[in-house]
């Protein structure tokens, strides 16, 4: 569903603020600072960062590779380990049975069960590979517009948070009201009228 795919999904944002001059250098620094790193610790479940659209698995955001014509183009990469719930359940059950057999008890405390679950998840996380997902981003600096090639709520949240951490400006999602308020060139009196609107009735 990326920029170059045959069927795209696009969420539009307005950049809320001014990127520090020199703009390209600020963007490059932001991208490099938060370039995705491979999942390090064995218990780490998720890694989120920027990568390049052309080489998403070997990110290189140095130079001006992210400048494409009038656009800034890069990708958000989210590597995530997902534990199959049935495997976790099975391993927990096996471990709990073993613990009860060893201690000769018929039940375990809530705390013991919690510890077993945490241990099982830790062991499994070290064995499961992270699955990478790539979401393309196109930034038109002149118009202050960013397109995210996804409409998923969780991905939008990741982008909004990482974008602010990287570039020091926030993103405002454009839905009907924000598009009207911020991008339609309305005057002060128009904005007052907009704010006092109530739903219309198309049927009596």
């Amino acid at each position, binding site marked *: 569903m990326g920029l170059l795919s045959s069927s795209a999904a696009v969420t539009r944002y307005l950049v809320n603020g001014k990127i520090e001059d020199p703009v390209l250098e600020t963007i490059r620094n932001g991208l490099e600072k938060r370039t995705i790193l491979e999942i390090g610790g064995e218990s780490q479940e998720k890694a989120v960062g920027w990568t390049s659209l052309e080489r998403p698995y070997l990110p290189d955001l140095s130079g001006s590779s992210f400048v*494409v014509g009038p656009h800034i183009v890069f990708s958000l990469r989210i590597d995530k380990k997902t534990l199959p719930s049935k495997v976790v359940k099975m391993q927990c059950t096996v471990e709990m049975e073993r613990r009860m057999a060893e201690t000769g008890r018929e039940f375990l405390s809530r705390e013991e069960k919690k510890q077993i679950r945490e241990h099982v998840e830790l062991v499994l996380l070290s064995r499961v590979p992270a699955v990478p997902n790539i979401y393309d981003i*196109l930034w038109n600096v002149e118009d202050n517009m960013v397109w995210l090639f996804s*409409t998923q709520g969780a991905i939008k949240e990741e982008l909004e948070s990482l974008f602010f951490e990287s570039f020091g400006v926030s993103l405002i999602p454009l839905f*009907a009201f924000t598009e*009207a308020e911020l991008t339609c060139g309305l005057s002060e009196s128009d904005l007052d009228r*907009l704010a006092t609107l109530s*739903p219309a009735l*198309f*049927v009596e």
Partner: protein
Amino acid sequence: MIDVSVSFKRYSFLGLEFLTWLWWATEEDSEQVTRAAGEPAVLYVGNRIVLEKTQREDVERVTIKGDAAQMDEGILALKKGAQVRDVNLIMEIGDSKWAFNLNSETMAFSGLKTPPTAPVRVVDEMEGAIIEKAAFIEKPLTIMHNIFKHFITLRISPEWKDEVLKVRKWIMEFKA
């Protein structure tokens, strides 16, 4: 500026009204749509429309898929007070054709298909391909923004009352 999460909920009716008005406009006043688009674009409803009716806390949704004849079901839903939540739109400019779904809540585009672009065979062709594809994607985004801007200007004007009457007439006089 009103807090984004507050305005998202409080003014969610604007997106529903926009898509409902747009459906009427594409059927009954296509000249207005083309003027608002700012380009000689022809816009019409494609093969899917989702209607929503909120009554107190309950939300009823109806999804209609198929050709124009089946869209009659949608107008019957409008008659019962529903409004358009999602719509599949086709946009044509000359020989070029775009198709996309537009959501009233998020105003996000999905299933966006552009006119065909040349395949990327070598890495050196990537930059050109991105520029070409971005221009194709930008076209419906810009045109829909122009139409939305026209709608919102109308929506806050005294003329909106007459526009509502026209949409109401279209809905109420419709016979399946």
